[in-house]
């Protein structure tokens, strides 16, 4: 069937900010969909509130709206643009839910809009638990015994029947928010309450537990001719009970015979037909009983998903792209397979390698939360790796995670080994292993290694963990290889070449093998470490000693292997296991015979990507890397991307000329570099766009004679090394908070004493404020040094005087070593102390005086030129007592680059790439500073809901997962929209609860008065209430939680409060108000913890009360 000509204009809904469970994979799918439909000459309207996406680039869609993905804004855009159809299946759950509410509110009918890809009935059938259950029963598929409960009573009567444990899944939520496994009656009530609350329809599915069953996923596609194909099967290493997003998974499935696999395939086809997904992709999850093969259908997503992004990367079959083409009428046989060119998309990909996906967690940022995994997703990113053996694929994937792991063990992370040692000494290690294996955590896979090393049998490990014996056998095989290698090495065995080669084939890198041959020394170091306290001088010097030993042994290893060492070859991902020729250089490394890299004769540049998403390093850097690639292509230079993150646009084989899906480690990059250098003209490597991951490799790359393009690693070092930076600040005669460096607890305490508390402490060389903290007294500092910081001689802790109540600013600029282009000065809404990645900011600034702005510009230019920056630079400033302080200089792309690019309409990363490759700012016409006719607010999205018990107060450690942008004619309009987009509904009327520190009272008096005059009811705690009353406001007094009842918590629970404003004075009052903040979180009530944010929000509410809002298409902003 040909393309539909009755449609001309199609709207695509994006997925909004990055949150846990919905990350950059939807930028990948959205971008593919936009590109696919543009190829077909449709006019595309796009809405997404997330500025850090490629899909919202004005170059792709015709009409881009960065607006909140909520009904009023959607309707406004529809009214303006009048699309004939909406494609809701490429923007995750957000887009699906948005489309469904447009349908339910009659907006689709009103504007005569058709949903393409999935019809409302199909969406409901797949998403509504009860309807889904009925549909499955109809086709004879088994689902777990379950009940959809809308009340506690219904819930309780179900478990009276089935008993515990049960699994709770709230309807229509992302990544299983509010769900979980309930083991006992005590938890049951609170968990059900929470789940009911989380579900927009106040329904929770309570289902019989199939914990420990094998878990599989199939990615299915269907077209209008009712052709159905399976794109990929996925098997989870972690059995049922762990959310698939949090599981280590492999593709294709490994442990089912054809007979059993075909049963899943048949069921998948029956399910997609019964649910009625007419075109596009769906993801179906199954549980299989390992004892007898019984199959239970767990769920189905009638849309492109995280797993489909993974499946696309794993097979080379672009699901979202094909889904978009199918949605406008094509059938699979009419769409060519891009990779083979000669064959159509109507086939099932086969692969001749094994793919492993490993989740990336950030529990270290939420120390109050247990690390347990269950059916609610908690990981913030993932890495994928490809290998010709499971070992190769699995170890590469772990190595890609950026968690200081070189593979499955054999590295410098001693934490688990220390824990095991402690238990061994107490003779409690067996019970430790048993419980650590049976309760899934992010560390389980490494604990499993220790259990195997302790001779625990596979059967026993299986009995606790239910991890399939296939995986356990494969893992134990790795330990055998280690044993063989160590023995051969120690004995000077002449066959060491064979054993080394076998180790390489199973994914071992030289660093791991160096750790292996250092085993004895490391064992004794770990023994010593177990006896002394963490963070002490001795502790740190022992760590340095371990590194030294390993480095020595690495040299020894290199001497021995030099004679026979072979570089890896590169194989292609081609959808067809080499049955047809591949025209797409989508490559992975393997220790095999034949290399298919076929480097070209062209001029070329390698771009290093950012690796897995994590808090502090996410989609923003992928956005920059993609732009670097686009710029190279425009310059007719071949772009070569290296990255390990399957959720990204950068790892789409379509984005760059060549793609290496590889871990971003020195060994892997050097082999790619050597291969690409062997032919054509490799100009060098760009590493300023991928965040901290590639930057960390700068010096090692330099040592290995890798040509680095852009700002030189020496100059990068001058900005990042404290001593060097101090010199720079002195040389340029600038001001910075007094500071010091410490390499141990003792030094830290001394330094802080001198600087006077409060001080700001952080490790050097980190991104996202990892382990950054404001410290008020010595005990806190001591604890910090012992527990949070990863300190070493090479990586000391930085201690700075903390500038209380300072105003913070971020500047992004471009420099070509002659001129500097100030792209954006962003004023933070929160004051100093909140990590820049967590604070809202406004562009252009509104509260900064002209002389200070001039000083900022002059200083930025001075620093950029002094550091000989070639490309992007980001500087953070603070204004304290009207003086300008330098906080931090980052000579690289920052997190705000996409935001600024969208606000000023200039693609900064693209321009930076052009500068790096020799264009001057003048040539690029970047001379005049940008002017603004709108205000732009960046607001962040926080993941607290997923981390039980975590305080929601913001601090210097970054905790946000994503961001949104609000555009407005006034600062308040922009701020208001940013709040809406980030998920806070600011009500036009209602009541506000206020409890603030003394110094915040004065600046809030006037704004609260206006709010009160506009009809809002005010509630306040005694002190605040007295103050406001004295200013003539009418306030209702509320007592604090510990003062009796009914207190503020009761008010919140009884739905009396619409906005919460809580600004604690210090650590003490902060703890008092914890419960208020937690209940705000629980009931999704907008809450503000800074004066500035509150004032902007109030202004926004008042403005919105009086005026109608508008939506502003990007590109037409100027």
């Amino acid at each position: 069937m040909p393309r539909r000509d009755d449609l001309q204009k199609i709207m695509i809904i994006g997925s909004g900010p990055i949150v846990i469970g919905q990350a950059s994979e939807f930028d990948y799918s959205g971008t593919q969909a936009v590109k696919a439909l543009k190829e077909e000459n449709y006019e595309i309207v796009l809405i997404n509130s997330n500025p850090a996406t490629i899909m919202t680039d004005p170059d792709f869609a015709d009409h881009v709206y960065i607006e909140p993905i909520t009904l009023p804004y959607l309707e406004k855009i529809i009214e303006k643009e009048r699309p004939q159809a909406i494609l809701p299946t490429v923007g995750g759950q957000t887009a699906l839910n948005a489309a469904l509410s447009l349908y339910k509110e009659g907006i689709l009918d009103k504007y005569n809009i058709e949903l393409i890809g999935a019809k409302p009935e199909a969406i409901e059938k797949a998403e509504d638990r009860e309807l889904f259950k009925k549909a499955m029963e109809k086709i004879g598929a088994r689902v777990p015994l379950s009940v959809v409960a809308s009340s506690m009573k219904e819930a309780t009567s179900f478990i009276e029947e089935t008993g515990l444990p049960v699994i709770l899944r709230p309807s229509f939520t992302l990544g299983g928010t509010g769900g979980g496994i309930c083991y006992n009656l005590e938890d049951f009530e609170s968990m059900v309450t929470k789940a009911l609350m989380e579900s927009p329809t106040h329904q929770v599915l309570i289902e019989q537990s199939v914990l420990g069953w094998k878990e599989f996923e199939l990615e299915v596609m269907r077209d209008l001719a009712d052709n159905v194909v399976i794109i990929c099967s996925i098997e989870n290493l972690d059995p049922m009970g762990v959310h698939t997003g949090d599981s280590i998974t492999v593709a294709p499935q490994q442990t089912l015979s054809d007979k059993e696999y075909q049963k899943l395939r048949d069921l998948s086809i029956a399910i997609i037909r019964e649910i009625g997904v007419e075109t596009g992709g769906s993801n179906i999850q199954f549980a299989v009983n390992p004892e007898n093969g019984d199959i239970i259908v767990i769920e189905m997503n009638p849309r492109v998903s995280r797993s489909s992004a993974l499946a696309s990367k794993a097979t080379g079959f672009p699901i979202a792209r094909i889904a978009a083409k199918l949605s406008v009428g094509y059938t699979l046989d009419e769409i060519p397979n891009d990779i083979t060119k000669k064959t159509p998309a109507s086939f099932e990909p086969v692969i001749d390698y094994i793919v492993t996906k490993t989740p990336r967690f950030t529990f270290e940022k939420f120390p109050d939360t247990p690390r347990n995994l269950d059916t609610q997703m908690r990981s913030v990113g993932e890495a994928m790796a490809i290998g010709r053996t499971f070992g190769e694929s699995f170890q590469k994937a772990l190595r890609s995670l950026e968690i200081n792991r070189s593979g499955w063990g054999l590295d410098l992370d001693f934490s688990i080994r220390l824990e095991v040692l402690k238990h061994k000494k107490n003779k409690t290690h067996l019970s430790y292993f048993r419980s650590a294996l049976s309760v899934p955590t992010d560390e389980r896979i490494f604990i499993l290694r220790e259990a195997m090393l302790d001779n625990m049998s596979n059967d026993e490990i299986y009995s606790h963990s239910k991890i399939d014996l296939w995986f356990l056998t494969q893992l134990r095989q790795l330990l055998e290889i280690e044993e063989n290698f160590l023995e051969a090495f120690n004995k000077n065995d002449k066959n060491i070449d064979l054993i080394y080669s076998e180790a390489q084939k199973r994914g071992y890198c030289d660093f791991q093998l160096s750790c292996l041959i250092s085993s004895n020394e490391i064992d004794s170091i770990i023994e010593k470490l177990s006896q002394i306290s963490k963070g002490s001088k001795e502790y740190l010097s022992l760590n340095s000693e371990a590194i030294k030993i390993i480095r020595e042994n690495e040299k020894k290893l290199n001497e021995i292997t030099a004679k026979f060492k072979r570089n890896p070859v590169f194989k292609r991902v081609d959808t067809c296991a080499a049955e047809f020729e591949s025209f797409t250089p989508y490559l992975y490394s393997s220790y095999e015979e034949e290399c298919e890299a076929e480097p070209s004769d062209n001029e070329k540049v390698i771009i290093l990507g950012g690796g897995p998403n994590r808090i502090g390093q996410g989609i923003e850097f992928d956005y920059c890397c993609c732009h670097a690639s686009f710029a190279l292509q425009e310059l007719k230079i071949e772009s070569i991307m290296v990255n390990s993150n399957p959720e990204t646009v950068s790892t789409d084989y379509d984005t760059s000329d060549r793609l290496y899906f590889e871990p971003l480690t020195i060994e892997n990059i050097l082999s790619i570099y050597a291969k690409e250098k062997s032919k054509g003209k490799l100009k060098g490597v760009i590493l300023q766009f991928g965040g901290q991951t590639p930057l960390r490799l700068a010096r090692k790359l330099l040592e290995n004679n890798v040509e680095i393009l852009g700002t030189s690693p020496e100059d990068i070092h001058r900005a990042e090394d404290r001593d060097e930076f101090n010199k720079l600040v002195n040389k340029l005669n600038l001001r910075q908070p007094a500071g010091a460096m410490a390499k141990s607890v003792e030094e830290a305490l001394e330094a802080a004493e001198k600087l006077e508390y409060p001080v700001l402490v952080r490790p050097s060389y980190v991104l996202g404020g990892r382990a950054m903290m404001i410290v008020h007294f010595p005990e806190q500092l001591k604890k910090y040094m012992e527990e949070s910081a990863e300190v070493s001689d090479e990586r000391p802790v930085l201690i700075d005087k903390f500038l209380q109540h300072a105003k913070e600013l971020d500047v992004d600029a471009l420099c070509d070593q002659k001129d500097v282009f100030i792209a954006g000065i962003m004023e933070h809404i929160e004051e100093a102390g909140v990590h820049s990645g967590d604070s809202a900011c406004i562009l252009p600034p509104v509260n900064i005086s002209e002389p200070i702005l001039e000083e900022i510009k002059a200083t930025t230019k001075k620093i950029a030129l002094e550091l000989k920056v070639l490309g992007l630079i980001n500087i953070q400033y603070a204004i304290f007592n009207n003086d300008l302080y330098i906080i931090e200089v980052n000579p690289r792309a920052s997190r705000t680059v996409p935001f600024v690019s969208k606000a000023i309409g200039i693609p900064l990363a693209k321009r930076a790439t052009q500068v790096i490759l020799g264009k001057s700012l003048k040539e690029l016409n970047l001379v005049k500073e940008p002017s603004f006719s709108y205000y732009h607010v960046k607001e962040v999205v926080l993941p607290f809901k997923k981390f039980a018990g975590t305080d929601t107060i913001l601090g210097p450690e970054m905790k946000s997962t994503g961001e949104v942008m609000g555009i407005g004619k006034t600062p308040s309009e922009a701020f208001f929209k940013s709040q809406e987009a980030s998920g806070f509904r600011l009500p036009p009327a209602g009541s506000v609860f206020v409890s603030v520190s003394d110094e915040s009272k004065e600046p809030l008096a006037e704004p609260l008065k206006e709010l009160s005059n506009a009809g809002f009811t005010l509630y306040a705690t005694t002190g605040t209430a007295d103050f406001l009353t004295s200013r003539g406001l009418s306030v209702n007094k509320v007592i604090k939680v510990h003062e009796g009842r009914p207190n503020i918590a009761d008010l919140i629970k009884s739905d009396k409060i619409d906005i919460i404003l809580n600004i604690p004075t210090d650590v003490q009052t902060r703890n008092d108000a914890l419960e208020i903040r937690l209940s705000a979180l629980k009931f999704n009530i907008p809450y503000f913890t800074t004066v500035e944010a509150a004032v902007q929000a109030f202004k926004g509410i008042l403005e919105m009360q009086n005026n109608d809002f508008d939506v502003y298409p990007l590109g037409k902003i100027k």
Partner: protein
Amino acid sequence: MKNKEIAYLILEDGKYYKGILENKFSKKECIGEIIFNTSMTGYQEIITDPSYKKQIVIFTYPSIGNYGFNSEDNESDKAYLEAVIIKDYCEMPSNYRSEGKLSDFLDRQEVPLVSNIDTRALVRHIREKGSMRAGVFQFTENDNIENNVAQAVSKLSNHPKMEGQNLTNEFNGKSANNFVRSYVQKYKLEAANFKKICALDFGVKFSIIEHLLQNKIYPIFYPGSTPFEKWENFNENEFEGYFFSNGPGDPASVEEGIQNIKYILTLKKPIFGICLGHQMLSLALGANTYKLKFGHHGGNQPVKKESLSEVQITAQNHGFSVDADSLLKAFKDKPQVFEKEINPNDNTIEGFYIENSENRLLSVQYHPEAGPGPHDASKLFSYFSKMMQPD
């Protein structure tokens, strides 16, 4: 990998690969046509599929042996292929139905299992050069490899090519009829009410028999390449339809088989042919067959009705193909119904349905019985049953 022996895979064009022998190989030498199969599951079915007789099979999926071996999934009584070439062997299978290791089964069958080969490189070579003669050889430790390879290559060039080989003579229907009986017994089928058909055994897969019986069709197998005059207990009035099975080798060389089919065509009963049976039916109708470069071997092959958008994903395993033009020319009078199916990957013919005044013929190159592979086309068996329904 310790203590395992080395074996060489040597191709007729002189290319050779050093691999690790995962089982016993007392013959020290075996020769066949080398082909690759892209199925990611189903190694057991493939290994026991008679159509692979005289072939060396490379599995493109790199980890083989994962789910072991069982007594339920065999496609015949033994392994017909010459050797199995893989990347990585999984020695410790994990599956609730597994009854042992793949290598143990292959030991009993005296079929070598050679691992540690860059199978992707090998497949790319065969894709470029076409399937060819190859052998697995084991040499004594100190032999000069180059000499050995040269000797092996000359052996290979003296070995008969697949073209021109009739490999169907050993299939006499006995094992197939035994399977029919035991299946009827096992599932307590009321076979008396089934439609009885005459099936020509050229190396039938058990999956085909299962599908026929599941569709209430009771096949009685006869030795396909023995002239029907010599068949025991053959009474043509007894049968409501005819079936021609899959099998190994070059269809054009099975002359008696083609003669049998020519005779059966005169009986004007509904006919169903699969794979080799399809090719031979085409030959009997007057069409030609030819050798494909490296064939279709896998479970992901698309099949499309020529005029429609409908695509089925099928299991395929064939090195020869029917020439489309010659098939059309074979009919002097245009049939009343002529539907053709093609493989959109290379537009080769994958099947046809013909209805004219004399015959109703259903013939497919692919494997609707799967075993292993997708079940999309399994409805053909019920379609065959309907063809036999009196109008």
